[in-house]
Each structure stands twice: as structure tokens, then as C-alpha cells.
């Protein structure tokens, strides 16, 4: 519950901070921090325009997308506090819950019969397929390192590993940031600001949504960012520093994460679409390096 509350709090400011950072860096006056939520509020009150092609899939898909994200967040621990739903091997369930949301989200795009949305759906399916191994190798690595299998125990034991484990933590944080960027369709892979349907990924999949449904998707995306933020925080925040101090650190990390995304998106060019798969597969190889390191640290390589 703590985690859900915290992620809701983060979610409120997160997209605003990114946009604010981007506007400051590009020298614009820009929107206020609360503007994304004002937009969602407007969407909630607007009437919807629905395509005549769509079926019940489009009706339920945004709702499932949001609910699976919320349920996935419920699984996450906060440093030192286990989730009431956490169990051995919970990260598998976590990944598959997100997959359920994604599955329906892809179908939702195909439901409109538009070839633009077909492109988006196709790219989303391919990229999430390619990014999945990186996530699992990463968790396999830290599970091997700590000898535990539930997220709470893995992260609690990761902190007490000593200096040799720190390098794994650095790699883990790097990977989680990159995975978060890809899963949320941010800069190196997708550009949320692009105006051409042909080059969009996430944006093109929601072209035919409006009103309530679009608001649900936006809220879901915000929560998804917060979700990865919590995972990153779990890697970094020490377990035994007191709850208040942890909360401060948590918000510090979330703020830093948002600012970093803003900075990255301001200065980084987007990759060519055809190069994206290569880039994503690189993450898996970095995760494999972490795995080999973990084997070395646990003295499994030396007989």
C-alpha cells in the first residue's frame, strides 16, 4: 500500500517535471508542472469519439492496461518493507502482469483497422519481446547473487553485499533506466513529441482513443514510470536508514530520474527505427555481462 501511495504521489509530478526540464533546456517558457494532470482532467470530462470499426476490445483494453499496471505496483516492495503480495518468484508474475496489459494494448491498436496503428502495434510487440530477456537476466543475476527469489529479499540482501556488489547495482540501475525508457516509449527508441504517424510507436497506438479511454491510458503510462522508479529506488536506497529518510531519498531519486529523462530527451537524438532492435538487444548483452560478474563474485567460475 505504501508503494501504491508513493507511486501515485510520484506519478502526479513525474510527467510535469520531465516537460518542465525540457522546456527550460530549450529556452521556452513552457507549461506548469501540473499541466499533464490538467489535461487528463479535461479528457475525463470530454465526450468521446469512437471509431466505427472497433469492438469490445477497445472498450476494455485501456482499463486492463491501467489495472495490470496498478497490480504490478502492488507487488513491488519498498526498501525494507515487503509488499503484502510478495512471494518467491514474484518478479515472474510482475513481468507477466505487465505482459497482459501489453497484449491487450497491442490488440487495442489493431482493433481500429488502421495501418498506422498496425505499425505501432507491431513495433511495440517486437520491442517488448526483445527487452524482456534483459529484465529476466537482470533479475536472474541478482537472484543468483543474493540467493533469494522474492523481490523484497533480493533487494534487501543486495544492499549488504559490499563493494564488489556495487558494480552489479550500477549495471542494474543503468539497465532499469533503459528498460523504463523503452517500455514507456521514450527517447532513444521512441519520441513522444513526434508529429509523424509513420515514425510513432506509443502515440500511434492511441490515435483513435479519446475522452475517458485516453485518460486511462495516460494515467497508466504515468503509473508505469513510477513503477520503474520504485524498482530503481529499491536498488539504491539502503534498507536500514529509517523510514522518513528513506522517503526523502525516494523522492530525491524520483526527481533525479525525471530530470534525467528530461535532460536526455533534450540532448539525445532518436535512433533510426531500423536500428532499434540492435539497441534493445544490447541491453540483454549488458545484462549477461552482469551475470558473468555475478558468477565471478559468487566464486562459481573458479572451481
Amino acid at each position, binding site marked *: 500500500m505504501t508503494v501504491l501511495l508513493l507511486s501515485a504521489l510520484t506519478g502526479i509530478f513525474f510527467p510535469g517535471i520531465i516537460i518542465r526540464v525540457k522546456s527550460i533546456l530549450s529556452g521556452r517558457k513552457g507549461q506548469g508542472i501540473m499541466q499533464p494532470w490538467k489535461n487528463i482532467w479535461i479528457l475525463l470530462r470530454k465526450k468521446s*469519439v*469512437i471509431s*466505427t470499426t472497433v469492438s469490445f476490445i477497445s472498450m476494455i483494453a485501456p482499463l486492463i492496461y491501467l*489495472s495490470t499496471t496498478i497490480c504490478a505496483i502492488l507487488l513491488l516492495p519498498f526498501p525494507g518493507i515487503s509488499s503484502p503480495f510478495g512471494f518467491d518468484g514474484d518478479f515472474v*508474475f510482475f513481468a507477466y502482469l505487465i*505482459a497482459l496489459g501489453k*497484449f491487450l494494448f497491442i490488440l487495442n491498436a489493431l482493433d481500429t483497422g488502421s495501418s498506422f496503428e498496425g505499425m505501432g502495434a*507491431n513495433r511495440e510487440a*517486437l520491442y517488448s519481446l526483445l527487452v524482456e*530477456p534483459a529484465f529476466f537476466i537482470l533479475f536472474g543475476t541478482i537472484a543468483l547473487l543474493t540467493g533469494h527469489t522474492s523481490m523484497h529479499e533480493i533487494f534487501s540482501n543486495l544492499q549488504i553485499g559490499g563493494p564488489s556488489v556495487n558494480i552489479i547495482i550500477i549495471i542494474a540501475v543503468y539497465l532499469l533506466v533503459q528498460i523504463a525508457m523503452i517500455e514507456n516509449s521514450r527517447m532513444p527508441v521512441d519520441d513522444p513529441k513526434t508529429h509523424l504517424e509513420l515514425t510513432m510507436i506509443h502515440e500511434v497506438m492511441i490515435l483513435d482513443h479519446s475522452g475517458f479511454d485516453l485518460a486511462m491510458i495516460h494515467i497508466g503510462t504515468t503509473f508505469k514510470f513510477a513503477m520503474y522508479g520504485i524498482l530503481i529506488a529499491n536498488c539504491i536506497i539502503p534498507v536500514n536508514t529509517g523510514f522518513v529518510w528513506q522517503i526523502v531519498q525516494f523522492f530525491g531519486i524520483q526527481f533525479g530520474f525525471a530530470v534525467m529523462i528530461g535532460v536526455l530527451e533534450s540532448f539525445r537524438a532518436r535512433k533510426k527505427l531500423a536500428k532499434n532492435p540492435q539497441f534493445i538487444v544490447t541491453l540483454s548483452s549488458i545484462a549477461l555481462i552482469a551475470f558473468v560478474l555475478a558468477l565471478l563474485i559468487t566464486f562459481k567460475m573458479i572451481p
Partner: protein
Amino acid sequence: MGQYLILAPVLLSFVILIVPQRIRNPYVFFLTLFICILTSVPAIRMIFAPGTEKYILDGPFGQIDLVIDGLSGFFVLVTNFTMLTGVLFSRGYLQIYQGKKNQAQFALHYFSFTWLHLSMLGVLMLRDGLSFLISWELMAVSSFMLILFEAEKRVTLKTAVNYLIQMHVGLVILVTAFLFCEASTGKFSFDALHTYFSGNNNVGLFLLFFAGFAIKAGFIPFHTWLPEAHPAAPTHVSAVMSGVMIKMGIYGIVRVITYLQTDLFLIGWIILVFSAISGLLGVMMAIVQHDMKKVLAYHSIENIGIIGMGIGLGTMGLGLHNPLLTLLGFTGGLLHVLNHSLFKSLLFYSTGTVYKIFHTRNIEELGGVIHKLPGTALLYLTGAIAICGIPPLNGFISEFLIYFGLIKGLSLGSAYQVITVLLAIISLVLIGGLAIFCFTKVFGMIFLGVPRKKHNVNGSVNNLGMLVPQFLIAIIILLIGMFPMLFLKPLMTFVTEQFHLSPVTEIVSISGIFLKTSILSAIMILLVIVLYSIRSLLMNKRSVAYGPTWGCGYTGGSSRQQYTGTSFANNFAELAHPVLKLKDEYDRIGEEELFPSGRSFSRHPKDVFRSGLNRLLDFNMIILKKLARLQTGNIQHYILYAFIFILIIFMLLYLKVL
């Protein structure tokens, strides 16, 4: 009394050939029901109270033992359920052929169907080598007859013959394996394997058995019959073949594993490697298919891979004396046998419904079917989510058990073992991701969007007889997904008994895990319902406008501009092209062609292994053709051959070689 009860189904099956057409299907249904009840009762008893039950048949050919233990009992239940839904579904589905086929052909079809059921039950219950192999052969022949139903199509005929030949290659391998056992122990039966394995090298004979059973199960590279035979057969037959018949191979492998004594880790490792390859290649080849049933056929290979990964993991656990790995591996693998039989038959049935209405299996010609068949679409979606291993449905439960076993296996001893386990995890993850890719494509292309081609739809759209078995399966899929312990507890008890594991306390922790996943899934479903109510409340208050799909302001596009299956799979196919063989057919635009005319593009996936097999066969043909020169037609030559033969025999005898 008991003897006659067992023989009754055999005798009653011949009545199918003479019952009048009107009551044929009900008759077959009640006969199947009778067989199911007859075999399910002891099967259920054996699963809940492990042990063995024996029925002895005294006949003119001597004594035949029918044995049911936990393992065969489990497979008997899976078989019975799928056969029952198959018969229910067939009534509506076979209407397509009404008028095209005569009554004798229908009767023969149902007769073979019942015999497929009987022979599968025989395979599961017979322990004596000879009667087992006879039953195995009957299974091949009856399924051959079933595939042959549309024999007027040349492709079907060719496929069926190919199937029959490959099954016999498998049979020869199995006979050889049993003969090895007989040569060493003097007995031609499964029970003698125990003696054989305690005295001889285990790996060699196991591999022989594995090859024989793998042809039936469809492990890559033994799978080449499978993607051809499934689409050729009528849908309910494909469902039964894919749902349960190929599982007989799995049954055989597990049965042999129960007798193994040494080298278990190596054997488990071999199974794991074969399975991971089957799983990955199966799903990769599934993505590029256009035929709805071929997609499902390749997914059978994928799921056999997942089942095999569970069994391989369990065997590795046996070798390492790690009861937790054994329990998780075998339970996961066997539960996946049940799960796959459920969602695969559901997918085949809903595919069959689409085929019945639209008369095409090509997904590139379909689209927007959801508006015509909303119920079927929902059922297909259920099957698709289940087969991808996504919660809250049953596929997740079995895949999670295997994942859980693999993750626990990460804390195994050496680096070599850990790396093996990690590679297995990666393959399972990739299989999951690829399955999602494949089923979003297939579901999207068949059911969503607008029709890509005009179809003259005829026939009743809602056939209750076809929908009822599908809903039945869907309910069980959801039941396993939400209350897995209901099914897992008996399965775990019997795995514990079968492999003589010390009573494992982990059952408690596993039930705790699944309690939490169930609660979380329930929360998710509840959230969706709440959000949906809010949505409908808001939508009711305001007027909702309807308009065309956004096309950059252009609304004159045709349905042919939609994404197709080929275009959806294109970027994946480019990434995976070293493994997949694709043939593009299109005509280039000539240089002097100022105003290009209409063009077409088509892409045909090819099975690399199939082409390899073909090359092998072609090579054989060349040699055989050369040998055919011996056949001169001259009687003098033939006498000469006989003379040379006798001479060689004498020579060999003289040299004391013979």
C-alpha cells in the same frame, strides 16, 4: 463381469458402422461417454490414492494386463476430456461436409475417431511391450484414417501418407529399443526396463526411446509431419491430435524416465536442450505462417518444448537428488500437458468455427470477424491469453512452476549448471514474448479491423452444439488459472509418490504463492469491473460520437490498406531470417514500364527441417534409381542374382562369419 465391461467398448464401436445416420453422432457421444466413465473412475482413484490397479484380460491370445497408475491415470483423464469435447464439436463442424461425403465415409470417420480414443487408452494402460506397440500402431493407423477424411484433395493424401511413414519410422525405433531390452533381460515389456537400466548404460537406450517417442510428440527436428498433418485433418481431429495424441509421446518419455537409474542429470540436460530448441524454433516458425491451423500446429511444437523443459528440469532434479526441482519440473510439465490440451483444443475449435463460416484458413483474407462472431472471438482470446502463459489463466500456472524451478535451480552447484539454467530461463522468456507477438498478430488479423476480402457468409452463425464444448473448456481454463491448487495438489501428491520423493514441505509454500497470485488477479479483475462501470456511467451521461478511424484526414482508404499478417511479421522475419526460410514472390517493376500495372506480393514460409528431409529423400531416390538398374526383366539375370546370393552365403559360412 469386469472382462466383458472392458471388451464392451470394442464391440460397441463396430455398431457405429451400422447405426442410422440420424442417431450416429448421439450414439458416438454416448459410447465415448461410456468409455470415459469406464476409464476415468479408476484413473481418478489412482490419482487421489496413488498405487496401481490391474485388470486382467484372458483371451485366445493369452493374458493381457491393463494397468492404471497415477501417471497413466492423469493422461487418461486428459485424453477423455478432450475426446468428449471433440465428439460434441464434431456434430456441428461436420455439417460443412454434408452432401459432399456419403454416409459410409462419415461412419468410417466416427469409427476411426472412437478407435483413436480406444488405442490411446490402450497405449496408456498396456505395459507389455508387444501389446503396447500394437496399440501404438492402431493409434497411428486410426489417426491416419482421420487425416484422410478429405482424401480427394491431393495435398491431404500426400500429407497423410507422409504421416503414416514417419509414424512407422518411429515404430521401428521403438521396436528396436524394446528388442535391446529383451536381448538383455529376456522380457519384452516396460517393467523389464527397470532390470535393464540397473545393469546397463542408461543414456543409449533412453535416447533410442526418446527418438521414437519424439517423432510422435513433435520435438524438433522430428516434427516435420506435424505442421502438415494438423491443417489437413478436420478441425476436431486436429484438436484431438494436437491436444492429446502427441502427448502420448510425452507419456512414453516420462514412463521411461520412471525406470531410469543412472546418468539422470545428463539425460535431463539432453531433454532440456532439445525442448528449449523445439520451443524457440516452434514459435518462431509459427509467427511467419498464414494458415490459421498451421500457426496452431507450430505452437504445438512450442508447447511440447515447454512441457519437455519441465520434464527435463525434473529429471535433472532427480539426478541431483533435489526433490524441489523434481517436484516443480514434473508438476509444471505435466500440468502443462493438461493446460495445453485445454487451450489448444479451444483454439482449434474456435478456428474451426471461423473456417466453417468463412471457408478460408488464410488469415490474410480475414478480418473483422469479431463483429460477426463475438462469442468465438472471446473464446479465441481466452485461448490466446492462456497459451501465451499470461495470468490469470491456466498457461501461467504451469509456466510459473517451470520458471520457479529454474530460478531455484540458479542456486545449483557449478557455473556450468547455472549457465544451463540461465539459458533455459532466457529461452522460456523468449518463447513467452514470441508467443505474445504471434497471437497478437493472429488474433488481430482474424478478428479485428475490417474484412480484407468479401466473403459470402452462409450457415448458421451461432451453433450451440459447437459453442458449448468451447465454453466448457474456457471455464476450466479460468478455474485452473484462479484456483490452481485444486488441480495441483493431487498432481503433486502423485509426482511425489511416483518418484519416491521425501514428503516435500514446499507444497505448502507453493500453495501460498498461488493464493497470492489468485488474490492479485482477482483484484485486477475487480479493478477492471469498477473502471468499466465508471466508464459506462460517464458514457451514458454524455453523447458519444462515432466516426471513421483516423487516417490522417483521408477516409477513402480501402480495407486492403490494413496491416496484414505478413507485414506484421515482417520486422521479426528480417531479424530472424538466418533461421527462417522465406520465399518472396513478386514481379519487379521493369525499367521501361512508365505506368506500372497491378502487382501482387506473397511470402511463403518454408520449414528448414522439411527441406532438409526432402533433400535427404531426394538423395535416397537417386541411389534407389541407380539400384533399379538391377531390375532388368530378364529371367536369366534374376537366376544369376539368386545364385550369387547363395554363393555369398556359402562363402560366409565357410569363413565362419555366419
